[in-house]
């Protein structure tokens, strides 16, 4: 895998506040990479640094092997950017807005017209292409922003909170569109604070916390490493101490008491039959048992909880 984006010790300080703290990232060609974390954890600043819109205080960035500060035009012509809450010129139509961007990209008008038509069709805006953008909904603007990236034929697309403020249906549509683009070989970097929502589309994610990357890797690897398992079983049972009953059970990586009669069991496979057997063997009554896959939110909360605990202990 050749890496198209590489950062080394990337740092951005605003006065004494460190917004981005020594970030090392490597993103491969064709990957869908998620920058995840709460608001204010340095995701947007990292994106601005990748685009060369902000100067790093320390460290280096390479995009396609180019330095965004020294060769900004070359970098910006191969990278498409969809900002958080993207804005357009409200008094112009979608087509005119894209035509302006196309002229800034240096496209010829015949080529631009063709690409604009194709891009608008792909994001299903061709019916309203000649309406003023002022009348567009949030979801339509977001799709129009994506159309700009498509029109640019960018090798790398950087999407900042692409699903922010969208209803579930628009979110799903947008995610599907992103997956299709990734399928065509576009490298996609997207940031989000809605961890669970994007875990389905991202090949790899980086979890941000206060300007630092806590974890990088595939979603399944992260859940395995942090929670010790990929599955969670919620158990309700009476007359049994589940933690004692499940000692030395295979595949089970953790048992946590949630209430008088309820537990949460982390495991790396479906262990429901094993739990049922042990509860009955121990003389307990099994009330309810449900299985689900762990989400990134749980990974995030658990990981940074542990970090905080370590920090306090140290």
């Amino acid at each position, binding site marked *: 895998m050749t890496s198209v984006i590489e950062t080394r010790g990337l740092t951005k300080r605003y006065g004494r506040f460190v917004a981005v703290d020594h970030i090392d990232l490597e993103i491969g060609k064709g990957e869908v990479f998620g920058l995840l974390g709460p608001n204010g954890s340095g995701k*947007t600043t990292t994106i*601005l640094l990748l*685009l060369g*819109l*902000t100067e790093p205080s320390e460290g280096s960035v390479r995009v396609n092997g180019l330095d965004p*500060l*020294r*060769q*900004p*035009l*070359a970098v*910006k*012509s191969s*990278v*498409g*950017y*969809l*900002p958080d*809450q*993207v*804005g*357009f*010129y*409200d*008094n112009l139509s979608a087509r005119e807005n894209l035509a*302006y*961007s196309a*002229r*800034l*990209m*240096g496209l010829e008008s015949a080529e631009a017209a063709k690409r604009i038509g194709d891009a608008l069709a792909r994001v299903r805006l061709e019916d309203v292409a000649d309406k003023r953008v002022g009348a567009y909904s949030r979801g339509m603007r977001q799709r129009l*922003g994506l159309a*700009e990236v498509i029109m640019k034929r960018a090798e790398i697309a950087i999407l900042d909170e692409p699903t922010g403020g969208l209803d579930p249906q628009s979110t799903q549509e947008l995610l599907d569109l992103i997956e299709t683009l990734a399928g065509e070989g576009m490298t996609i970097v997207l940031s989000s604070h809605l961890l669970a929502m994007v875990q389905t589309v991202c090949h790899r994610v980086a979890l941000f916390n206060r300007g630092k990357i806590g974890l990088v890797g595939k979603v399944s690897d992260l859940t395995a490493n942090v929670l010790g398992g990929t599955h969670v079983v919620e158990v309700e049972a009476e007359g049994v101490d589940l933690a004692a009953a499940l000692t030395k059970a295979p595949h089970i990586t953790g048992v946590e008491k949630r209430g008088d009669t309820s537990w949460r069991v982390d495991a790396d496979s479906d262990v429901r039959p094993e739990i049922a057997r042990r509860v009955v063997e121990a003389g307990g009554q099994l009330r309810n048992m449900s299985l689900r896959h762990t989400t990134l939110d749980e990974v995030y909360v658990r990981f940074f909880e542990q970090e905080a605990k370590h920090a306090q202990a140290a």
Partner: protein
Amino acid sequence: MPRQREGSPFTGLSTIALKEAADHMTSARIHLVLLLMFLTAVGAVYAAIGQITATVGEDQFLFLRLFTTARDPLPSFVAFLGFLLPLVAIALGFDAINGEYSRRTMSRVLAQPIYRDALLTGKFLGGLIVLALCLLTLWLLVSGMGILLTGLPPSGEEVLRGLAFLLASFAYAGVWLAVALVCSTLFRSPATSALAALTLWLILTVFWGMIAPLIAGALIPVDPLDPMTQVNQFELQQAIARISPNVLYGEMTLGLLNPATRTLGLVFANQLQNALIGAPLPVSESLMLIWPQLCGMIAALIVLFTVAYVSFQRQEIRA
């Protein structure tokens, strides 16, 4: 470490300038301001023509009187321009940069393969294009009205002086466009930026004439026993007054449209010995007279643009 950037800072400049100009031409705000200016200007010239035809004199430069004659209660055409051109320029520029932030288009535009330089310069050029078009239209309109209604064609010299006046007006409007551009980079809210620019406009066009003598009087009090202090005070007062582009523009129009103007400062009686008072100066001499004013205006324009440029280059792009 070398900090060379690759690629031309002018990439996309013409695209941005033309788009800005087109946006201005279609915006209701600019239509209103231009309508105001055209109506007052045409009214002033129409009144001036009435005045001129009523008192036909033996004036060699009757045509130039179109621009400078006032008839109560209307001020003259140049007075109108001096007062209203800044308003047009401010309307064109006050939300140039901060408007992009509030529309959240800034980062999207700057993510295209262009430099920031091109955006700022393009916005300025776009404004200048509109100002040039509007001034040219106004100038032709007024000249045309003059020829039709008075029935006299302008002489070559009058045309030359008129063109120089057009250039001076353009530089004057450019300075105010640069002021508006500076405000739009310094203030994040378009409303604050507009108010700041308008405040400056009011101070410099209306109140500066009262402030300048006060400052000069405080700095160099007149000593009744030493007449030179009076001269010094007046010269200081004039220097302070000339900070206002409005004063510089007034002096330029005086020098250009009134060929008999020999000086814009103090003259002593002995300097006027053997002078034919009231005799017109040739165009070249009049140009020489206003040259410092014109240069000062262009310098102010460049300094203001540089301030906007530096502040914009240091800005964080986060919208």
